[in-house]
């Protein structure tokens, strides 16, 4: 597990310096600095109930979660579930992008994706989806804040997609 974690850490940090990953060694086992230098100068996106800081420090991929969901550490099975998840989310994210002027639609899609995101173990994406849900149901929701939250989710998804692809490659080659 340590070997895998180290290998995965290296690949993740090539793309995202803030990445942290959880392993079965313990909660929120840090593999990299918590400082997100890329986003230090970006203005914060205000999202109801979810602070930027929470979103940034949430791990991108919690490899232990899928093992827990499946009650199995079988590589082939994990790869299969990651593949199903990627295909599903890729299709749904396109619909989510188009829902910036429809809070109800955005909420429904985010709600559904959140469940599978939790089960697969992508905590940062789960946080981004929670933020969309929170904005969509808030009374003072406006198109601008929803659009920002959707964009944030899209950004998180890009990183998540890459990390999962790498994880699948590792599992396939090991």
């Amino acid at each position: 597990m340590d070997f895998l974690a180290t290998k995965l850490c290296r690949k993740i940090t090539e793309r995202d310096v803030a990445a942290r990953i959880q392993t079965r060694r313990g909660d929120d086992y840090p593999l990299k600095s918590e400082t997100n230098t890329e986003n230090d100068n970006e203005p914060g996106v205000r999202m109801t109930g979810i602070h930027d800081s929470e979103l940034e420090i949430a791990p991108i991929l919690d490899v232990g979660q899928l093992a827990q969901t499946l009650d199995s550490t079988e590589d082939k099975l994990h790869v299969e579930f990651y593949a199903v998840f990627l295909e599903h989310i890729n299709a749904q994210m396109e619909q989510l992008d188009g829902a910036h002027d429809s809070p109800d639609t955005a909420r429904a899609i985010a709600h559904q994706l959140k469940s599978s995101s939790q089960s697969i173990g992508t905590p940062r994406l789960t946080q981004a989806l929670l933020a969309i849900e929170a904005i969509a149901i808030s009374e003072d929701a406006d198109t601008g804040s929803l659009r920002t939250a959707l964009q944030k989710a899209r950004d998180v998804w890009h990183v998540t997609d890459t990390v999962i692809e790498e994880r699948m490659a590792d599992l396939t080659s090991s």
Partner: protein
Amino acid sequence: MSAPEMKTASQSPARRLLAIDDDPVYRRLYAHFGQTLFGHVATSESVRHIPEDVLDAADVVILDLEMPNTDGMHFLTEVLPEKIGRNPDLQVIICSGLDKRVMELARRAGQLVGVKHISALSKPFTAAALRNLLAARAQSAPSQLPSSDLEKATIAELREALLNGHVVPYWQPQVSTDDGRVAGLEILSRWNHPSHGFLLPGHFVKAMESDELGVQFALGILDQALKSLRRWEKKAGFTGRVSLNAPPSALIDPTFAERLMRVLDSHQFPEHRLVLEVTEHAATTNDSQLLAGLARIMMHHVPLSIDDFGTGHSSLDRLGTEAFGEIKIDRAFIAVLGTSSTTAAITRSIIQTAKSEGLRIVAEGVSTAQAVATLRDMGCSELQGSYFAMPLSEDQLVGWFGENQGYFPEAVNQTENNVLL
């Protein structure tokens, strides 16, 4: 919308699971866990376009309530009740990420329209919670026959099957948390049907418990079970109890107790090794005939057990004054033990109260190591369920005893028994 995918496994070919969820990750999860417990697993992304034969064949339906362009509530309250008419034993599991209060309302709405066996599981759930629930449903789900064949399962047919030895005893072990050994075996029944193979009691329960056949069936299956027991008990080293289900139709028969004793005498089987399980409803009745029947059995020193405890209206504070020496906690409690803190608290309370009254507590539907550990630590006396063994035929039971010597150290309650400390 795609047509349901069918996945088939060989373990239990008669039981069918249909999972309806628009999320492919969850559909794959249901298939993953379902295929080890059910013979057939079908999944569908929508309630629409499910072929009628697939729906008709399902024993258990997993239903997501919130799906785009489709109404899970409509399906639950309008479509399923029609199916219930053809298969009254259909079981439904609501799996959703909706607020638990919404799920509870949906569950109650389903019950109101006739879906008797309905439970709810919140997303995201743990593997153990899903497996527990599916295992409990897989165990209790009857195999499915076309409705035309179901209608033919009459009292006369069952009587003939019984007389010809086509109804055979199956056994499910009960493991003690005192020493990890098999303390008891529940006698179950299977109908070896010439056309349809082994049928679960769900197919013939009405005939089996009917006024005409209740006594004959209960005594017939007991007679066969005791014959079977004599063939293998020494080899297996089993000296524990056997439990028999006694329907109200048998209990109210004034000749039942005498005839029961004659069966025991004919096998020289001591009455204290038999436990008669009666449903919670029968146990709490005010029916004078039923009470008289229970009294007759007690006069012959045959121990009584309350089956499916928690599903009826028993009062915990009356347990000590009742005539029963054992309660069996219903599998519905055990299935959600790991996910519902309320259920866990109720189960703990039942166990503590029953123990303080000197009753033996048997948990049914124990299917995971987690459930074993939880119930053991709560002080439950005995555990029964697929974690240890599914219901087994005589040959399977003998093989099972050979494999594990009827000993499960993980079931032993260390806190109460480790005297070396």
